[in-house]
């Protein structure tokens, strides 16, 4: 039997939809057909008129249409003053519709960092929140105890945008009945259990602490350019973007966009450091160890890296 998917956009840029359209393994039409997914509604892509949409929402509300999958893209806006009216539809706050649909759904997926953790505007006047987290704080719009019909909490597919292969992979796992192991922020370990740093083509430069200090060089971006790759869980250098590359491979630091704290308040493209060693070290590494290791590594750096003759 076909599985009903309702896709809504709240305080969103639409980037997760457009990232998803870049999915390759499989591509979107193949995925939807293969999993027998019936797209009830997507604001940009489904061909449903306003009166039909209203009837659809009524039938989801009274249960005559089952809701297997709810995908929410974008932050839930609670401003101004808790009314939610910075994001309204038909004169009512959209947050109310998110709550109503989430209560009916078998699975609830927060697609992207805004839907997962609030993202842009958590501290701003729009009072943004994620579905079950506000930044790293558990709760969010739906509350800590929320469980979808399946018994799972909100599945957070973080990233700005979410990497194109992650939603398809998650749908395949859920619909196959496979156990979806989640981390402390409810992100599936299959994609968020690896570091963005892993697989970066600049890894040799990191290893021997050969640093990029200006745009356009070959070197590691961690020490001066603000790269968050060693601190950030995500698949960017494991499953390449658009089948081709990643930001770090083209000299753009990782901004930590899968993290609950994204976007950080401190300036991008700069590493805060003490005595030349970054304040924030690779996840789980102790400072004393790291300083000793990096001093030795820099001393051991081969000429081909010091002269930046090895390609990245």
């Amino acid at each position, binding site marked *: 039997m076909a599985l009903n998917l309702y896709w809504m956009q709240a305080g969103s*840029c639409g980037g997760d939809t457009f990232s998803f359209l*870049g999915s390759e393994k499989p591509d979107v039409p193949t995925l939807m057909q293969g999993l027998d997914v019936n797209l009830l509604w997507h*604001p940009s*892509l*489904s061909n449903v008129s306003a009166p039909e949409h209203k009837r659809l929402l009524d039938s989801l509300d009274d249960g005559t249409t089952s809701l297997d999958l709810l995908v929410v893209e974008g932050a839930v806006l609670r401003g101004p003053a808790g009314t939610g009216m910075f994001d309204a539809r038909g004169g009512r706050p959209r947050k109310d519709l998110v709550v109503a649909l989430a209560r009916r759904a078998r699975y609830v997926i927060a697609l992207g960092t805004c839907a997962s953790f609030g993202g842009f*505007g958590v501290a701003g006047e729009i009072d943004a929140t994620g579905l079950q987290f506000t930044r790293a704080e558990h709760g969010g719009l739906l509350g800590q105890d929320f469980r979808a019909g399946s018994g799972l909490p909100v599945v957070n597919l973080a990233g700005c945008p979410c990497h194109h292969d992650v939603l398809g992979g998650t749908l395949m796992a859920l619909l196959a009945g496979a156990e979806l192991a989640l981390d402390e922020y409810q992100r599936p370990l299959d994609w968020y259990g690896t570091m963005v740093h892993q697989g970066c083509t600049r890894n040799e430069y990191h290893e021997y602490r050969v640093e990029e200090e200006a*745009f356009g060089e070959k070197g590691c971006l961690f020490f001066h350019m603000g790269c968050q790759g060693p601190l950030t869980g995500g698949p960017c250098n494991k499953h390449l973007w658009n089948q081709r590359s990643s*930001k770090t491979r083209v000299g753009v630091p990782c901004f930590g966009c899968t993290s609950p704290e994204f976007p950080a308040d401190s300036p*991008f493209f700069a590493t805060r450091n003490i005595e030349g060693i970054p304040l924030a070290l690779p996840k789980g590494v102790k400072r004393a160890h790291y300083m000793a290791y990096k001093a030795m590594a820099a001393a051991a750096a081969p000429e081909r890296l010091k002269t930046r003759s090895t390609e990245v």
Partner: protein
Amino acid sequence: MNTRIIRDIPFNLVEGDLEVSIEYGDGRVTDAWSAGTLYRGFENLMKGRGPLDGLVMTPRICGICSTTHLFAAARALDAIAGLTPPDNAVRVRNVALMAEHVQSDVRQSVLMYMAAFAHPAHAGHPLYDEALRRYAPAAGSSAIDAIRETKRVLEVVAILGGQWPHSSFMVPGGIAFAPSQANLLQCQQLVGAYRAWYERRVLGCPIERWREVDSRAALDVWLAESSAHRDSETGFLLRFGRAAGLDAIGAGPNAFLSYGSLDLPQETAVVAQTRQLVAAGFARGNAVAAFDAAGIAEDVSHAWYRNHGTLHPAAGETDPYASAQEGRAYSWIKAPRYAGQAVETGPLAEAVIDGRPLFADIVSAGRTSALARQLARLTRPATLLPAMEIWLQELIEDHGAPIIVGDGQVPDGEGAGLLQAARGALGHWVRIENGRIARYQVITPTAWNGSPRDATGQRGAWEEAILGTPVANPDNPIEAGHVIRSFDPCLVCAVHTVRRRV
């Protein structure tokens, strides 16, 4: 005449949230109010941040034109730092932006605009069955084809910039990394393959043949010439659109704006009328005048902001206030005007200002319509793909030349980054003080096209364009939808074209 007002009609198949209220009488739209119903307050988030942070934050304004926001942000920083990027940086930036455009033009046309042709409300149309076979969401033959091909051309942006959407590879003075020769050859292959598909399926003819279509009469000849032309996406748009009367509705304000876009490198084989591939200008009808950025001002008389007067974006103020202009305000979108005039911007405006003969003919004959606007969009890649190929070839030949000037830092100062997004004129206005962003202001294409009224009562472009549109069923005004979608609305962008007093 009996009229009634139907409020808050949401329109799907657009980017973001759009609700339009229409007044309806004698089978036609007699008045219209277009509302952006989402406020994200992006510019406020910029205040106090690091000077380069616009390169990371502003692409996240829009998921479909993130490269364009990045480019506008980088241009503003170039201007503040007084840097002129070297030729190869200009080429890489341009090619990435153009890859985003040729993707967007086809996706919007096939997955949104023509998808609406497959709605059951068109069941009586002689081409309905074919529309259904082609454009059923994620299942029609053209929809599947477009999804597969457009994502491949976006691989060009990933090769040059790391990922699409939302990269930050354009930096003050240039780009963050020099693509390798192998990278560039891959880009060349991808653009060549996309061009071949575009010619085969979207145009049904070589680009050179399409460029010979220089008048309405020549368009009729082209359409009659072969089944390949008629069966192409362009041919189907014309056949379905004419039979549905889309060539007789949606005229709009008959005033057009382009900021100009795609600077030519110092040395290049690409030929253009100015130092930009897409010319800047303002046109009434097809009478083109020079564009002067000083002519831009924003009015908030019908938007939910405290009114501080009609101001240029570099001096403007914004106070979101949901009880402002009580009884009059109906949108989070402000009303930008050029020399006091409501204008339309986008591919049709570019074609008119560039003086492309087919569209100059349509406009001068007073035949501006929803169909003409959509035709300009679907065929714009024919003007971009050949230049992309030349710039990639020049990058391969000049491989190893500089890709950045300056030290990547930006001093205190004020600057603007103006260019053409897929949907039209986009501007970022930036001021940096004491090493931090003091003001960041954005006016998007949809703010121009989808603005509410101004203090003189002048409607926004698509409010104006749907006046007089015949509507068979006022509860499902599909005809008005075709007109509004011909502007390619992007509400995710427009809803935060808001500025805040700093």
